[in-house]
């Protein structure tokens, strides 16, 4: 008795039940008037020139940090990706071992969330713009490297062998045989990473690393909702522009030739991409200069207390089981919320196009809004704790998963759904049988990947107090308990590595059966 794909899709939503059951008990008395005031302020953002000017300045810093972090990670990630590709090593030196070693090493920077990198670097070199840039660049480069090497190593190598057999030198053969098929994957992933970088830069700002995030947090804490919404609308505009721009370039550069309206000249795409790449470098340099990134200042490290003096007995007596358990439960609940709710919302809205549009707008706001700010907002009406943290984390990821689900539904032919409707089934059942069947496996596979991301992200909702490793880490960091922090980092990294492996297996299993 194996559930069929559309039913499989609804399974994660079972995890919504504990959330729903726990929610009434979490509501504390006050705060609803604040929520109402917050919601109302959406339509009356502050138009005070002073406020707008400071918000725009913050927005510029955030965008600049995102752009620099992304650009650095893209170049670094491409190089590291080549360096950790089995195919590349085999072709160049006839030996795959170095690839495996580099790949293992890259797992470490990848397993630590950019927020932790940011806070660590902040302690190390003090507050400067380069901190946020590096905090984004380090884990992102490792992520890009993994995707690039995975893409490279799954490409068919028949072409490469043919070129080598005809005497082409190894680098030229690699570039010619694997470059073009690699490009679409790298482009679409690179574009996606730019959107992620903007979200990360905003998030880092919330934790005090500058930019719009800092402004948003300050206005929320001082309950200046009108000013908060001015900032949010700015952020929304930038994010929508970015998503549209990335989508445009992706379609222009990765569209198969036969669908193109005009036959582009030979090599036009290559020339355009080269130009864009060449334009990107001076742009990044100019942005870095304008932002005041100073590579020399990064060299001045503040002395840290040696770990030799750590009180390891006290470290051991931390409630480890509870910390790890809390982190896992938080991840599971957030995953259930994010993966399970999106299809339910679409099913609910199926008969009414206007409701569907409203749901989509909600998703835009959800992915725009950094999780710690959602958390602060939720804390107006809910008690702090695991469930509240899971809500904040889950809602943010719901916005990302929902968009993916809608896009894959839009890409699919509506024929089967139309046939079901013509045979008299209602719009909801038609969507369930005819629409969700086709996207179930790929959506769940992405959900598995996303659960791994959420495990890493649990630290950003650590503010909710006592919700696993993330909260403990923020606490140790603020009390300069380096011994605790080191131990926590190791455990967290191990946990995310195991989580990554599990989610990878699940994803491959889901996709294999498709």
């Amino acid at each position: 008795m194996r559930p069929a794909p559309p039913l499989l899709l609804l399974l994660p939503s079972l995890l919504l039940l504990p959330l729903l059951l726990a929610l009434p008990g979490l509501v504390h008395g006050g705060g609803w008037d604040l929520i109402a005031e917050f919601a109302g302020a959406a339509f009356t953002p502050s138009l005070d020139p002073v406020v707008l000017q400071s918000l725009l300045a913050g927005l510029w810093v955030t965008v600049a940090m995102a752009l620099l972090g992304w650009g650095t990670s893209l170049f670094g990630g491409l190089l590291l990706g080549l360096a950790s590709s089995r195919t590349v090593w085999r072709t160049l030196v006839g030996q795959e071992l170095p690839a495996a070693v580099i790949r293992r090493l890259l797992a470490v920077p990848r397993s630590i969330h950019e927020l932790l990198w940011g806070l660590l670097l902040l302690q190390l070199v003090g507050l400067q713009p380069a901190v946020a840039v590096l905090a984004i660049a380090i884990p992102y480069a490792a992520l890009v490297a993994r995707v690039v090497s995975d893409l490279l190593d799954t490409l068919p190598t028949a072409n490469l062998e043919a070129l080598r057999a005809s005497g082409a030198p190894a680098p030229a053969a690699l570039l010619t045989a694997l470059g073009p098929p690699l490009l679409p994957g790298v482009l679409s992933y690179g574009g996606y990473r730019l959107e992620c970088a903007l979200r990360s830069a905003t998030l880092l700002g919330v934790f005090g690393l500058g930019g719009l995030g800092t402004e948003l947090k300050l206005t929320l804490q001082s309950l200046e909702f009108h000013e908060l919404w001015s900032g949010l609308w700015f952020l929304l505009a930038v994010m929508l522009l970015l998503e549209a721009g990335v989508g445009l370039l992706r379609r222009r550069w990765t569209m198969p030739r036969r669908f193109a309206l005009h036959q582009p000249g030979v090599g036009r795409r290559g020339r355009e991409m080269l130009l864009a790449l060449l334009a990107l470098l001076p742009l990044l340099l100019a942005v870095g200069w304008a932002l005041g990134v100073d590579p020399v200042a990064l060299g001045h490290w503040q002395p840290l207390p040696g770990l030799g003096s750590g009180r390891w007995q006290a470290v051991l007596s931390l409630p480890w089981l509870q910390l790890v358990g809390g982190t896992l439960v938080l991840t599971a609940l957030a995953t259930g919320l994010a993966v399970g709710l999106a299809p339910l919302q679409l099913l609910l809205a199926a008969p009414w196009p206007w409701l569907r549009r409203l749901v989509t707008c909600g998703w835009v706001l959800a992915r725009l809004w950094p999780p710690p700010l959602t958390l602060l907002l939720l804390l107006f009406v809910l008690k702090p704790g695991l469930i509240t943290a899971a809500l904040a984390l889950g809602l943010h990821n719901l916005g990302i998963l929902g968009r993916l689900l809608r896009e894959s539904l839009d890409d699919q032919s509506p024929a089967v759904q139309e046939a079901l409707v013509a045979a008299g089934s209602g719009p909801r059942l038609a969507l369930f049988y005819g629409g969700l069947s086709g996207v179930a496996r790929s959506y769940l596979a992405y959900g598995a990947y996303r659960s791994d991301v959420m495990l890493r992200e649990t630290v950003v909702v650590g503010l909710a107090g006592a919700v696993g490793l993330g909260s403990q880490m923020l606490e140790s960091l603020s009390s300069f308990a380096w011994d605790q922090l080191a131990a926590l980092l190791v455990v967290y990294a191990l946990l995310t590595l195991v989580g990554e492996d599990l989610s990878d297996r699940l994803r491959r299993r889901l996709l294999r059966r498709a």
Partner: protein
Amino acid sequence: MARPELAVPLLELQQITVAGRDRPRLEALDLRICCGERVALLGASGAGKSTLLAVANGSQAADAGQVLWQGLPPARSGRQRRRQRARIGTLWQDLRLIEELSVQQNLNAARLAQWGWPRALLNLLLPLETAACAEALRQMELDPALLPQPVTALSGGQRQRLAMARLLRQQPSLLLADEPLASLDPRLATQLLALLLRQAQAPRALLLSLHRPDLLVGFDRVIGLRQGRLLFDCAAAAVDGACLRHLYGADAAPP
């Protein structure tokens, strides 16, 4: 039962017009189909056959004119409308099977108009109404052992029969088919047409579009459509070479 001419027609189109880009895709078209009638719809590509079938099954609204199903116009309420649509079964040219589901789940998908959510969910978990599904397969000369198979495991001919079995499982009174034989080899086409014609007896009726005048045996009536207009509507025996030449004439088919 009264003579078919006196009974309420299963499908009645009155002065149907559907606008197109250059010229109307259908223009002032009248058509009545009664119980037990098996009607073939002939016409060159672009003559409006698919549009006519889409108007007949309610997935395309007419710009002018009236569609009546069993004497009633399209219902206003969603529930009544769904009940009307459940009485009309369509065999699509691209079959429109749900690739991710098993044969039995696909057959049961035809019952979704009657089923609520509980049974729709259960169908994805357990084999429901196995006897009825097996019977539908048998009528299409398919082995009931195929029921638990995924649809993707079937051959082209089996898929075609499965789509027809799903049509039976819906228990419609009006059967519509949009060039169901277009992509089949001649032997298979003849076999499947015979199966379909056998199912389309009173109280059912069949309207089937095709572009092979050699397969008209077994139909009661033939309708010729040219440039969105009704060219002829006569008994199958009355269709002759002159008729067809006029229908498929060089000036009829747009490039």
